[in-house]
């Protein structure tokens, strides 16, 4: 890892966090890409690929549920982890620290809505 890079280095295919695990951190991608994967009866489903600057793993911070998906490095990837306790301690004094995360989550919900609408249309569930 470069002497000037902060965070942790992950090799191609390495798991950053696993679906069903307890969440103690969320993550910021410093460089590289990360696949977000969901296991289903049909096998592995890739939900999305995230890139530099994206934040993931934040859902479990707020809903206190286990990880909803697995995050896997695509190529050499550098990830900075964010501590759960430290985040909430900051947010208690300064709730605006969560604004950027809320923006990201809103974008994701918007894109999921679009996808859901497409899926329903394609599968004939709406007319």
């Amino acid at each position, binding site marked *: 890892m*470069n002497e*000037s890079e*902060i965070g942790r280095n992950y090799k191609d295919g390495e798991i950053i966090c696993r679906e069903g695990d307890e969440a103690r951190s969320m993550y*910021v991608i410093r460089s590289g890409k990360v696949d977000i994967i969901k296991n289903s009866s049909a096998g592995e489903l890739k939900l999305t690929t995230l890139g530099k600057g994206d934040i993931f793993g934040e859902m479990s911070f707020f809903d206190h549920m286990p990880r909803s998906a697995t995050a896997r490095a695509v190529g050499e990837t550098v990830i*900075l*982890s964010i501590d759960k306790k430290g985040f909430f301690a900051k947010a208690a004094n300064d709730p*605006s*620290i969560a604004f*950027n995360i809320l923006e990201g989550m809103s974008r994701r919900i918007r894109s999921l809505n679009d996808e859901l609408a497409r899926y329903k249309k394609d599968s004939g569930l709406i007319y």
Partner: protein
Amino acid sequence: MKSEYTLNDNARIAVIGGGPSGSLFSIFALKMAKMIDRKINITVFESKDFTRDGPVGCNRCGGVISEHLIQALSIEGINIPTEVIQRSINSYVLHTQRGDVFIESPAAEKRIATVYRGGGPKGIRIKEKQSFDGFLLNCAVEEGASHSPLRIDGIRNGDKPVLTSGGNDVMEADLVVGAFGVNSSTWKMFEGLGIGYKLPETTSAFITELEMGFESVSSTFGSSIHFFLVPEPGNVKFAALIPKGNYVTLCILGKDIDEKTVRGLLHTPAARMLLPQDVLDGKFCKCFPKLPLTTAQVGFADRIVIIGDAGSSRLFKDGIGASYMMSKAAATAALFYGISKQNFAEHYLPAYNRTRNDNRYGRFVYAVTNAYKNIGILTEAMVNVVNKEQDRRNKEFPRLSSMLWDTFTGNETYRNIFLRGTNIGMHKNLLLESAKALFRRSS
């Protein structure tokens, strides 16, 4: 109902000082304005050219970005690029009169960054990296702020404050943000406004850049900052060697630091192991910056708010982290509540006071650290407890190590460090190790 002390559309904000406080205030204020669909105009007045090497381009500090600040900025979407980071850090080595202690980041991850505030040491030959202050100022400009290199030398306080430079009016502002440090003379303008502002009390530090070459710094220091908690020289409170690209930054905090003190420190066995003996020969970049010891009296008035070191900062550590907190609090107050003295008293003062109150715990933490630095038996006990904790760090919580880590990295509030230190089990271990040290000495 709109108050005259509200930032309306096209409000003009003058930020005096383009260091981290001024740039972060501008970034946050512009982002918040966007959220509430308000158009504001921010001009950052900064005459320093952060691309220049030496003191003219530098805001003089050790240049360590703490773990908590790296994380906070990343969450906010401000990711410090590798082009700005000199070295990433994941551990500290504590040098004491009774041996050395290696303390690794609890996260086992490189989450501390060392940077240059300006263009690097005077005469730097290879300039591969960018200034941290320059990076943040660019972020503020990208967010929509304007940067003016004009040096503001006067403020006339009327219905709205008017900024002057060289005898000419430059700008009438709805809000003036004083984002300056204790090392600039800008504070005089604010003291002269008659708003009751008084500069914080200060102490002095010594900072120098020692050139060792990239490979030598890498092999000797790796990813560790070295801290010296040694009783001699007696006027040194503590000192640190901070690895940067081709250089190591030596920071000394204490009283009347002169060349004799520096040579005395560099001749301690630990320093001699780390640095070549001729490292002080020849020219090197050095400065004696002031550090705030207290918070300023009255950091705000109608249409005026003071942030940065000259307002309220953390004791000895993490000044840039304090800039982040204070600039955010000031931007929140100004954008969401208003810019009257009352608004700042209600929504900025609490953050200001939080830092001031936390520094009271800080004084206690440093007094205890000082005792452990100077009293040999206590030093030995501390070293032994921390070494044992580090050996068992995967099995149990390394309490004392984490306290030292958080004290020296500025990663936690001093209050939380103090509270963690009230654990009886840790004191039992320290007492036991002190008794063993006493026994070893007497036998």
